[in-house]
């Protein structure tokens, strides 16, 4: 096992009276794909956004390469080398593909952006993802299909020299071939030594690419298991009931005894 790249320790997060995350511990290791699974509303996206600096956490610690870090803004996360593909994609409809991919990190000086180099880099990254259906990288995002947008969002995240990539349901809107590409990409990123977190509701995909499977149940991280030693049905039970045999939440009777 490699050393932890990103560690979340005891993360708590509430939205007003709603306590969404309870003492969540999660470890992301370099060169591994960590799958994060859980039912709708379990808190997966919220956890990702806390790491990305979009939501402040109520308590808990984030460590990056063993050092405690404070991520107060998306820029802090990007500076550490953490890239995120959001579930809602977060693309500006009125900008084109290149402009979206480099948003906030445009090349060139502030007074004159280097459009040529940005366009070329965007094209190369998209080509490596086998995006075959986008007519031109200068197409405004408003003219793209849902799947094409998702590919742009993924390309945006892998464009940068990042250390950790967090993907929130990156294949939800993709066709068969594109899903294949993204799963290959996920593996490839891990092989390049990045830490990858993949959120997905598709168990076949999860078992195919993940090294470890972490299950969130009602805002609690109930299990962190090696994918090889876990069965399909165990994960499904963990997701729906929070426990499976001796795994997961302690049985109620254990608590009362």
């Amino acid at each position: 096992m490699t050393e932890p790249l990103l560690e979340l320790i005891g993360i708590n997060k509430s939205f007003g009276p709603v306590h969404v995350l309870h003492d969540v511990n999660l470890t992301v290791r370099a060169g591994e794909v960590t799958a994060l699974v859980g039912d709708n509303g379990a808190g997966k996206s919220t956890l990702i956004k806390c790491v990305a600096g979009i939501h402040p956490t109520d308590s808990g610690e984030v460590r990056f390469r063993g050092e405690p870090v404070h991520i107060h803004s998306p820029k802090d996360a990007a500076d550490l080398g953490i890239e995120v593909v959001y579930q809602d994609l977060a693309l500006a409809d009125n900008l084109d593909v290149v402009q979206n991919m480099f948003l906030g990190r445009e090349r060139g000086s502030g007074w004159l952006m280097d459009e040529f180099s940005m366009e070329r880099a965007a094209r190369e990254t998209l080509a490596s993802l086998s995006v075959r259906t986008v007519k031109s990288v200068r197409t405004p995002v408003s003219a793209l299909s849902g799947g094409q947008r998702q590919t742009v969002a993924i390309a945006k995240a892998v464009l940068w020299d990042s250390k950790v990539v967090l993907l929130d349901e990156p294949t939800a809107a993709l066709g068969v071939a594109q899903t294949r590409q993204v799963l290959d990409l996920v593996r490839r990123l891990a092989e390049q030594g990045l830490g990858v977190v993949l959120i997905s509701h598709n168990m076949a995909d999860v078992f195919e690419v993940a090294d470890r499977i972490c299950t969130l149940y009602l805002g609690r991280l109930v299990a962190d298991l090696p994918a090889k030693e876990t069965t399909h049905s165990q994960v499904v039970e963990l997701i729906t009931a929070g426990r499976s045999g001796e795994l997961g939440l302690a049985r109620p009777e254990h608590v009362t005894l």
Partner: protein
Amino acid sequence: MTDSPAKTETPPPPVGGAISDFGIDTTSQSTREAIGNYFARLRGGELGSLPALLGLAALVIAFTALSDNFLTLNNTANLIAQGAGKMIIAMGLVYVLLLGEIDLSAGTLSGVCAAVMAMHYVRDGNLLGGMGSTVFYVFVLGMVVAAGLAILMRIWAGAVLSLIAVAIAMLGVPPNAWIEMLLAVCVGAAIGCITGFMVSKIGMPSFVVTLALFITWQGVILQFIGEGGVFGIRTSPILFNVANGSLSLFGSWLLCLIAAGGYAAVVLGEHFRRLRKGLVTRPTPIVLFKVGAVAAIAILATWALTINRSPNPNLVTIQGVPYVVPIILALLVVGTYVLNRTRYGRHIYAVGGNAEAARRAGINVSKIRASVFVVSASAAAIGAIVYSSKAGSVDPQAGGLNTLLFAVGAAVIGGTSLFGGRGKVAHAVIGGLVLAVVENGLGLLRQPAAVVNIVTGLVLLLAATVDALSRRRAAAALR
């Protein structure tokens, strides 16, 4: 802004025989395809400034048929100078509209700038005497507060301009047309800092903030000028010539050369560099046609404006391109450059298109939101200089009446969306021309102000309807 290096080497092509280039991604298209795409975009609801251009052509034809005096050289030059001030205010408003915000105070705010500028001239640089000590110190304090807010928001340009306004007021600089114009712009920028702070940091809706300020500034103008008062600036040759003077014949042709040549150099230079590097380009024939058309229009317009257009040619000679044309062109170039080529402009579009995405991309959304009000207010001050010059005086109505309606209307009629994210500075110029033609043409037909206002209002309503419908159409195209 970090510029962390992107991977120079692309990841190896995925296994499984996937096509590793863009199949149908194209960098170039044929002229026929490009024209086809253009019509497809029109059908998809992206009308741009096409309705405004068609409307402009229709109006020109109609007024030419109805009035012999409409399409004369003198009236055309006059029409441009009449509309220029409001057109410039509209150019600044485009920045605010791009964020989906509104600045209802732009009109009366420009009146405040005009009043301060004219007072400085009329009172020989003694603003303290002109305002009375209490009002003067409140005014200076306001400018200092504006500078403080700008520093708090890290809008350095706004802070510097506000402090220059304080300096000019406190030092009692002797009257000088250039100083007075600078003062107007500085006062405008300072007011913009205050508006921007209230909208973006305090978080009040811009509609409410600027509606309140609209009335406030109207009162301030009245306080500065006094009931029934008027500041004449006709006697200052420079201030008066801004909107009433013209370039020399040599200057006119030089301007034509710089404008047409500069446009051609920039457009063709970029086009061929893109072609060479294999990047996305438009078809060469279309680019050449555009460059040629701009050059032809520039030469034709310069030729027409260098003819003596005086109503009695034997007594006086009026010829040359009016100064307002280079002023508008310069603002158009700067405004467009900032929006299209600088990081700041890109971020304005991003915040207007999807503020949450912009925030997640690390953009300081609240700073951008505040800054557009500074841009808009500064542009409004420049507009104030131009319309005051045209009138030759500043009275308590300056910037009031339909100034704001005209400015917002110009931007929206030109094709800038009220919903944010879509718009260009050029839209303000095209829309401004439409409204200037309406105002001037109805005036020639001896229609009363009532009719002019009703028609102007209805044209704005029509443009807003087109905007809303095309937006719905664009949204429907996505489903």
